């Protein structure tokens, strides 16, 4: 049975959100309609404006409503360092840590040979053009520590090195405050391989 009333349509629309099943969608819809009409209007407005106007930054590919995103347009960022990440959420995570002052390049995914996701889908042509611009002195590979993330990092590192530019990979290992006993074997292997002089 499909409910094509306005309420039914709202419930169905809310289900496009991650983690939202029919029950939660119904709860949200009733909440907005019963208790928070102004909130509902604000939400509708914000959604439609964002869906209309947010595109991709011409320089780093992250989500942005302007031609250049806030970070790429900011003065005082180090243009010689370029950090490659998989998603806009990764940019936010790194920015929160406030340790990095360079620029970003967002792949919007990772290489996945078995799913047919290759270099063009993750914008590597654009990254190459950026490197050929001559401003970048170091590429920091901060793709996820999954097998696909590693493959992506390796692939990009090869291309970066061919251009005589320095390529580095973020370190992997035991989390801060972590106890070795509870760290999985794969992580420990990385921690040992990547050990360093103290």
């Amino acid at each position, binding site marked *: 049975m499909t409910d094509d009333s306005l309420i039914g349509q709202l419930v169905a629309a809310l289900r496009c959100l991650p983690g939202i099943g029919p029950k939660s969608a119904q709860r949200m819809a009733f909440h907005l309609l019963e208790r928070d009409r102004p909130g509902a209007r604000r939400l509708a407005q914000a959604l439609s404006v964002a869906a209309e106007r947010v595109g991709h930054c011409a320089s780093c590919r992250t989500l942005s409503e302007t031609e250049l995103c806030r970070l790429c347009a900011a003065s005082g960022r180090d243009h010689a360092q370029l950090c490659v990440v998989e998603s806009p959420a990764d940019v936010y995570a790194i920015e929160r840590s406030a340790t990095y002052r360079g620029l970003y390049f967002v792949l919007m995914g990772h290489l996945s*040979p*078995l799913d047919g996701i*290759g*270099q063009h889908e993750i914008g590597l042509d654009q990254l190459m053009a950026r490197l050929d611009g001559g401003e970048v002195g170091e590429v920091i590979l901060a793709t996820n520590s999954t097998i696909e993330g*590693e493959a992506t990092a390796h692939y990009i590192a090869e291309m970066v090195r061919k251009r005589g530019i320095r390529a580095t990979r973020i370190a992997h290992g035991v989390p801060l405050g972590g106890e070795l006993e509870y760290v999985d074997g*794969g992580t420990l292997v990385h921690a040992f391989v990547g050990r360093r002089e103290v």
Partner: protein
Amino acid sequence: MTRVALQPAYVLHGKPYRDTSLLIEAFTPQHGRLGLVARGARAAKSRLRSLLQPFRPLLMSWIGRGDLLTLGAAEEHGAVPVLRGDALLSGFYLNELLLRLLQRHDPHPALFGRYDAALRVLAEYGHQDTGLQCVLRGFERHLLQEIGYGLVLDRDVVTGLPIAAEGVYRYDLERGPVRYAGGDANLVLHGRSLIALAGDALDDAVVLRDAKRLLREALARQLGPQPLRSRELYNELKDGFA
């Protein structure tokens, strides 16, 4: 409903399913290739998230019957081979071959052993060199044998005589090697290449090149027209981006 507990397994491939689950293709010795749903494996706090990666030796338990089973539990099983660089791309290639050529639920215990050993050798290599290629060719040959399309490498199929190291042979993919006497020059190979391939001892450039040509054509017959994506990616990396 069947319940199978603690089988050695490798994840060949995983893809997102619903909000927090993962659909995986796994390879096991006794149950062959399997399709499994790992419920909640992509949730933020899931322990399975980091475990269900390709190239990690695991013990898996599952329940269900038919084509899609439900993963019960997974845990680590022995030392993790760490694949880096080109070896990582080669690992994807092995996985793609298994996904394309093995039927679900066909047990291949010997091939599983080969796969496990191949990953451990790959972990020793960072870059594509002869050692790494040797592993790939050996695996390809065994894979063909396991699925019933093994190559004849020990005798001339016309005369029945053993392959002579200094001889030159034309490899007929339908039948096997035949002493080369001019004519069609496709897949003309050195006798010593065939002997080396049979003994998993591919130790020089000529032999490796012959083995690569032979196995590529033999695999192509089983794979059909759809290209191997991991191979395309590898070639793009090596040739592209001038």
